[in-house]
């Protein structure tokens, strides 16, 4: 039995379209591009006290421009700090005394690493370590500090407050 | 071996409703055998039993001397290719046109090349007088034409046994005459063993070699057409002469009518 040509054409079209869709999803939507079409990179280490929500494959930016991504995050068992391995694109030559901060995109966005270049003439090499790092801003800690401040303020205002409460209860 | 199909002590029931209690029936090779009986007596069921689409509770059906219900799938398919069953409704494939309908069994069961299939199909359509409809869809045919296309499709595989389930109902007199001639032609020229299930007493008796009348799950009368017409049996007489009153009830078995209407104690 033969299949009619227009049926074959349409089925072929369906297959083609789904292959296009698959490659679109693979290379444009998901991060698979970075597995396959790897740009030349070199690895750099940095240790943080607290990385907050930083994930693998988070981007590293300099002045907002993407210059690499986080490859691996693990705990350094000796220092009990987080060891972050980053892949920096080979074309970027960075001063050796650059510093790293963990920032958040928007209020609720994902974390990324912001690199602030230093002034040294020497540049970072494969396997180098960035010494100066700033931990992530943890919202809970910030709020905790804020509350602590408020408490101090509260103590001063306590008298006033209790009076007001009294009034409320009576009325 | 003179008997094409033999049924012995067949017992079959459906939803606790006994259809055949003890049926014995023989279909002779190369002859026209007619099976008659009132509506609902199980004629269609009988044909489906022969085609092994239904399985009997007890008893056996021998096709070419082999129990058709004990064959393996492959043997059964081969046996089915040797028998043609023409359903009461034509049962044409609605998604294929007339040509493809007739070509279907050939394409599925043989390795014939396209041009051979084309010639064969056109020959068979010519036999039933419908070569001109080859490109129509089944929905564009009248029911009589559809039945003839189904006949062409059934004979396409050159079966040795062909069973017609009520081929004459809903046909105009001319078509009926043509169909009868066709059935006789197929029987005489190709030597097909023919089984006709019908209520049309006159037409059927005129072409049958042997007649069975079934009623109430049993064969109540059998013999050559003249013998059937002369039979003393009350049921046979009632059926052949089309009498309204007699021992064959018009009603499906039911509770007492008066009781059903709530008049039992009146």
């Amino acid at each position: 039995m033969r299949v009619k040509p227009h049926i074959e054409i349409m089925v072929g079209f369906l297959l083609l379209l789904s292959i296009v869709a698959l490659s679109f999803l693979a290379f444009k939507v998901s991060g698979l591009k970075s597995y396959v079409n790897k740009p030349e990179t070199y690895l750099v280490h940095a240790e943080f006290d607290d990385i907050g929500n930083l994930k693998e494959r988070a981007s590293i930016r300099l002045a907002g421009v993407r210059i690499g991504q986080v490859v691996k995050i693990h705990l350094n068992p000796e220092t009990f700090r987080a060891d972050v391995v980053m892949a920096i694109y080979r074309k970027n030559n960075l001063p050796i005394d650059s510093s790293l901060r963990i920032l958040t995109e928007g209020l609720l966005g994902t974390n990324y690493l912001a690199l602030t270049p230093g002034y040294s003439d020497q540049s970072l090499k494969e396997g180098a370590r960035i010494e100066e790092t700033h931990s992530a801003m943890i919202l809970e800690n910030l709020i905790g500090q804020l509350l602590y401040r408020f408490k101090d303020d509260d103590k001063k205002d306590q008298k006033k407050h209790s009076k007001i409460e009294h009034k409320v209860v009576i009325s | 071996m003179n008997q094409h199909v033999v049924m012995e002590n067949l017992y079959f029931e459906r939803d606790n409703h006994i259809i055949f209690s003890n049926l014995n029936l023989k279909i002779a090779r190369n002859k026209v055998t007619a099976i008659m009986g009132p509506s609902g007596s199980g004629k269609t069921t009988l044909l489906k039993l022969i085609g092994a689409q239904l399985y009997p509770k007890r008893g056996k059906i021998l096709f070419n001397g082999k129990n058709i219900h004990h064959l393996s799938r492959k043997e059964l398919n081969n046996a089915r290719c040797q028998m043609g069953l023409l359903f009461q409704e034509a049962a044409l494939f609605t998604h294929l046109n007339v040509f493809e309908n007739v070509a279907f069994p050939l394409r599925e069961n043989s390795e014939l090349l396209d041009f051979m299939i084309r010639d064969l199909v056109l020959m068979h359509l010519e036999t039933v007088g419908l070569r001109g409809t080859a490109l129509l869809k089944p929905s564009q045919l009248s029911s009589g034409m559809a039945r003839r296309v189904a006949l062409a499709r059934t004979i396409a595989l050159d079966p040795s046994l062909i069973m017609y389930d009520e081929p004459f109902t809903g046909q105009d007199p001319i078509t009926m005459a043509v169909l009868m001639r066709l059935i006789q032609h197929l029987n005489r020229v190709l030597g097909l063993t023919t089984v006709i299930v019908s209520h049309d007493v006159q037409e059927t008796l005129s072409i049958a070699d042997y007649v069975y009348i079934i009623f109430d799950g049993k064969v109540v009368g059998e013999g050559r057409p003249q013998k059937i017409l002369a039979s003393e049996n009350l049921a046979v007489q009632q059926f052949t002469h089309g009498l309204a009153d007699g021992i064959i009830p018009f009603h499906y078995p039911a509770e007492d009518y008066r009781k059903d209407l709530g008049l039992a104690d009146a």
Partner: protein
Amino acid sequence: MLDFVQMLGHNSLKFTRRLGGSFCFLCASLLRWPRWRRSFPLLIEQIYFIGVYSLLIIIISAAFIGMVLALQGHNTLEKFSASSQLGQLLALSVIRELGPVICALLFAGRAGSAIAAEIGLMQTTEQLASMEMMGVDPLWRIISPRFWAGFYVMPLLVLIFDMVAILGGYLISVDWLALDAGTFWSNMQSSVDFYTDVVNSVLKGLAFGFVVTWVSVYQGYYAPPNAEGISHATTRAVVYSSVFVLGLDLILTAVMLGGW
């Protein structure tokens, strides 16, 4: 009370029997796959009828869903000044959930009902019986190709749905809401993982295609032989397969997220 218990018992027994019956039916039709040379054209034909015919409705729905999602997402994310995350929201919700599920629901409505009605009609008009009498096994000739076609086509449709929905969302975000295209894509890329998200989307598509065609084919094959029976079978094919798809989605999501 006793009546109720009796009814419960009766119905659960009936349900169990149905389940067993449909499973046997499934096995019977799947195990008929003996002649590749003949089966392959049948499969292609069914992929055409099942897949290509569903393509248009799936593309149109996907485009609209992607666009609406972008608008709604933007509206909400803007409140937290996080509209740069729109691409991520869009891609994750489409690839993980909406793509497979909506695709399956549309597929049930478009192809499932057609399968059930067609097979039901063939059964009612004794086409399957006469096919059997020609020595052709209807399970092999009619049921099995439809089943496999549904199974193969669904993942393809899901992929296409995902792509079109994301492109639709892109259109709205970048052309209408004037978000930055670079941020849109790069945020999406940093959050969507090919293996856990896209591959799971395809796996869900496979599972849903399996369920929808199983239900539809079974309902059609065992439809009572009359017009009412066919219409009921068609309705049931759509309703049951939708319910099964949603239930199965819960289980699959739990497995994929929880890593059981």
